[in-house]
Each structure stands twice: as structure tokens, then as C-alpha cells.
């Protein structure tokens, strides 16, 4: 039965169905409602787990690191500054090959202080060795959480997963959501039973010093795992999910109206809903447009993407993040992919647009005007909806 639930509440109840043993988090807007709901589920006796209250996100991440290292399924959630404070530990979690699952409720990064949505926060840890998934809807955010545990804990993967949801838009939005039955989740997600863990009866050291003679291989192993096993397993788990839960899950990317598309929008997260609406309207006018929605940003689905955009003439990347002094991270990704894989003759033109930073609303009209502009121009990292009255030559 579909319930009209707040995103954060729906995610918390889904996580509870995954039976985590330890949850640790520090409250930060707009993640708060997720862990609030989880802590009340534990307090009400509806979830049998340990909620560890901590004094910072650094400690929350350390706590779930320790929990997973002892062979317990663990979960955390954070946003923005909290994610930045966790950064050090997140690299440790990935480096130690521990399958922590987290939700990052994407929010702008200070300064200036801003609690609203964009996707700049998660880009700070994109190189850590964490699997990064992006949801478009609340339902998908829930579904990806269930899959995240299965992907992370797969014996050939053993890497952390962060499910990204747009702050407020998904975390505080209400939508009809179908929460699965406990039996179905149990069938899909067996108890966590790792090949290695901290155990007093069989002592080992995890995360020891690793000198120049060992370190390089640790990175090589994660890179190989990401590009081979994880790519395969994400698609495989999505298929298993679709079969068992009867709800479409797309795996690495979702393609929308791509068949004869000459222009393709590429984006991540909830903004894809707005873009799809625009694509429908443009299609009604006879324009050949489509959308590629990146669900797995790490690992980046290179092969799948190259196939999808093989006959495209124009790619428009729209993103809510910017690598200041360079381009949007997704733009860089797509352009380097096409440069290295496509034959020189048929390379599509790529334009990159930055929008929605710090919660600035992105409208259908803006997407349409981007499309119109892209017919004649191919800008890189072009900010849309810049208010000139907010700018000047001095502060």
C-alpha cells in the first residue's frame, strides 16, 4: 500500500527494514529527520539496534567504521559540513574495505552559510573509493538504500556506499511511497556475514601501516573493483531488486526517450524530473531530445554511457556542483570519457551548465532556454540565473 510519507521518514523506515545493528549520526539540517525517525524507532522498540550518540560527525563515522569492522551492519547519515568533517574517516572506511552504508542529504557548503540544496558537498569525497548513488524520487531513495547494503556487503565489493538525495526536495518532500514488507527485504538482503572482521577469538589487525611497498596496490585493488565488479554488481542487484520487489530499478543509469535523440541532457538527482517534463514538452513540438540520468556517479558508468550517447550530436550537462576554477564535475567526467573513447569524427558537442547552487530554484523555462542556447553555443561551466545586482567589484 502506498503511503504519503516524508522522504526522510520513508528512508528511515526503509533502513530499519534492512536491520542495521548500529546507527550513529550527528544531527545536521536537512539530514535531521532521517536519524530522528531512526532513533525514535529504536526508542519505541520497533528497531532492534544500538543508536550511538556522538559529539561530531567525525565520531559518527568512526563509530560506524568500528561497528562494521566487528561484523555488524551499520548506518549513518549526514549533510554538507557534516560530510566534510567525516571526510577523513570516509577515506579510512573505503581504504579498509568496510561496507558502511550512508545517506548524504545534499546541501550547499559554507561559507556563506547556506542550508539549502545543491550537490557540492558530496563532490568533496568523490575520490575516496566510496560508491556514490543519486536518487531522483523518494521511492528511488528508499529502493537504493536496500540495494546499497547488498552492493556494499557483496564479498567481491566490500566498499562503502553513499546514497545521495537532494536536501529538502526529497528529504522534506512528501510523496506516495511503497514501503516493502520485512519478509521481502529479508529475502533480498541476507544478514551481514563478512569474510574478515575484528574478532577476539580470531584476532587480526585492520588498517595497519602500509609502506610504499604495499600502499599502491590498495588503490589499484579499489580501482579494479570499482570498474569491474561494482559496475557489474550494481546492474545485477538492480535487476534482482526489480524481479523481487516488482518495481523498476535502473542500475547504473536511467535513459529516457533516447531512441532517436539528437540532443541528450545528462544530470543527476531530483532535477532530472524537471528535465524529463521539459523533454516531454519539447518532444511534443517535434524536437529530438532525451535524458541520461546518472544514478551511479562512482563508479562512473563509462561503457554504458558511451553506448547510450553513440549517435548523439549534442550533450547538455546540467549540474548542481562546480569545481571552482575548472568545470562542473559531471561535465569533466563526460568530456574526458568522450575524448578518450569516441572516434574523432562523430564526437558530440558538449555544453556544461551550473544551476541551483545553494537552493536557487531551477525552473522548466530555464531548462528550455538552455536547450535553445545549446543549438548555437557550447559553453562550459555556464552559470544560469546569475543575478547581476548581487555582484560588484568590491564586497
Amino acid at each position, binding site marked *: 500500500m502506498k503511503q504519503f510519507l516524508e522522504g526522510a521518514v520513508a528512508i528511515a523506515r526503509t533502513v530499519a527494514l534492512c536491520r542495521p545493528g548500529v546507527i550513529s549520526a550527528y544531527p545536521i539540517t536537512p539530514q535531521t529527520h532521517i536519524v530522528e525517525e531512526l532513533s525514535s524507532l529504536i526508542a519505541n522498540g520497533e528497531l532492534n539496534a544500538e543508536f550511538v550518540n556522538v559529539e561530531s560527525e567525525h565520531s559518527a563515522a568512526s563509530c560506524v567504521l568500528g561497528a562494521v569492522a566487528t561484523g555488524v551492519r551499520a548506518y549513518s547519515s549526514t549533510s554538507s559540513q557534516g560530510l566534510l568533517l567525516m571526510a577523513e574517516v570516509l577515506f579510512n572506511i573505503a581504504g*579498509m574495505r568496510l561496507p558502511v552504508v550512508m545517506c548524504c542529504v545534499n546541501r550547499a557548503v559554507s561559507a556563506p552559510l547556506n542550508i539549502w540544496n545543491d550537490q557540492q558537498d558530496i563532490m568533496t569525497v568523490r575520490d575516496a573509493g566510496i560508491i556514490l548513488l543519486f536518487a531522483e524520487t523518494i521511492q528511488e531513495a528508499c529502493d537504493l538504500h536496500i540495494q546499497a547494503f547488498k552492493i556494499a556487503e557483496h564479498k567481491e565489493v566490500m566498499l562503502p556506499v553513499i546514497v545521495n538525495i537532494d536536501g529538502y526536495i526529497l528529504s522534506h518532500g512528501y510523496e506516495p511511497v511503497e514501503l516493502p514488507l520485512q519478509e521481502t527485504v529479508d529475502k533480498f538482503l541476507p544478514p551481514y556475514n563478512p569474510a574478515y572482521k575484528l574478532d577476539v577469538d580470531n*584476532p*587480526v589487525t585492520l*588498517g595497519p601501516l*602500509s609502506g610504499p611497498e*604495499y600502499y599502491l*596496490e590498495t588503490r589499484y585493488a579499489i580501482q579494479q573493483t570499482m570498474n*569491474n565488479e561494482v559496475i557489474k554488481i550494481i546492474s545485477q542487484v538492480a535487476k534482482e531488486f526489480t524481479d523481487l520487489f516488482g518495481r523498476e530499478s535502473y542500475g547504473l543509469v536511467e535513459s529516457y526517450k533516447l531512441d532517436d535523440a539528437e540532443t541528450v541532457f545528462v544530470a543527476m538527482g531530483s532535477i532530472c524530473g524537471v528535465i524529463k517534463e521539459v523533454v516531454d514538452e519539447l518532444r511534443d513540438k517535434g524536437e529530438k531530445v532525451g535524458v541520461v540520468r546518472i544514478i551511479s556517479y562512482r563508479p562512473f558508468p563509462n561503457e554504458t554511457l558511451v553506448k547510450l550517447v553513440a549517435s548523439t550530436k549534442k550533450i547538455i550537462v546540467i549540474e548542481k556542483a562546480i569545481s571552482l576554477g575548472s568545470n562542473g564535475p559531471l561535465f569533466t567526467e563526460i568530456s574526458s570519457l568522450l575524448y578518450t573513447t569516441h572516434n574523432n569524427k562523430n564526437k558530440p558537442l558538449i555544453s556544461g551548465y551550473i544551476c541551483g547552487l545553494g537552493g536557487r530554484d531551477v525552473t522548466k523555462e530555464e531548462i528550455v532556454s538552455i536547450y535553445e542556447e545549446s543549438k548555437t553555443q557550447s559553453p562550459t561551466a555556464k552559470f544560469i540565473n546569475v543575478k547581476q545586482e548581487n555582484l560588484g567589484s568590491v564586497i
Partner: protein
Amino acid sequence: MFAKLIIKPATSLDNKTGSWRSGKKPKFLHNKCTGCRMCYLLCPEGCISGSKKFYDVDLDYCKGCGICSVVCPVEDIVMEKE
């Protein structure tokens, strides 16, 4: 794919750090030992062992720092050239 990330206990015994020793090593004379255990307690390498009034050093790991000979109250440990 995985790299070597996990270490089983006692693997550091394979590192014979005694090879780092420079010049001098302790000699336990076994004449006047009172069994105070100061050498055993203060050895930074933990390579002195024994019981009652008889202690000795494991030269596989001793780095020759000389603390044992300094703390011995009855001068029953001396540093000598290798």
C-alpha cells in the same frame, strides 16, 4: 579485488629488529641480581624476559639502547661491544 590489508597477530616477530643495533649490546652478568625486574619493566623493546633472580635479553630484537644497564641498581648488566 583486494590488496594486503589485514595483518594476523604476532607477525612483527618476523621483523628481527636486533639487526638495527649499533655497536653495543647488554650483557647480563647473573651475579648480584636482586629480582627487582627494573630491566624487564623499562626495556622499550620488551625483549628482556626471565623470572625470580634470572633475567636475560633476546638479541634478535634488542636495539642496544642501554636503559637496562643504567636502571640496574646493582650494576649486574653491562654494555659491551659487539
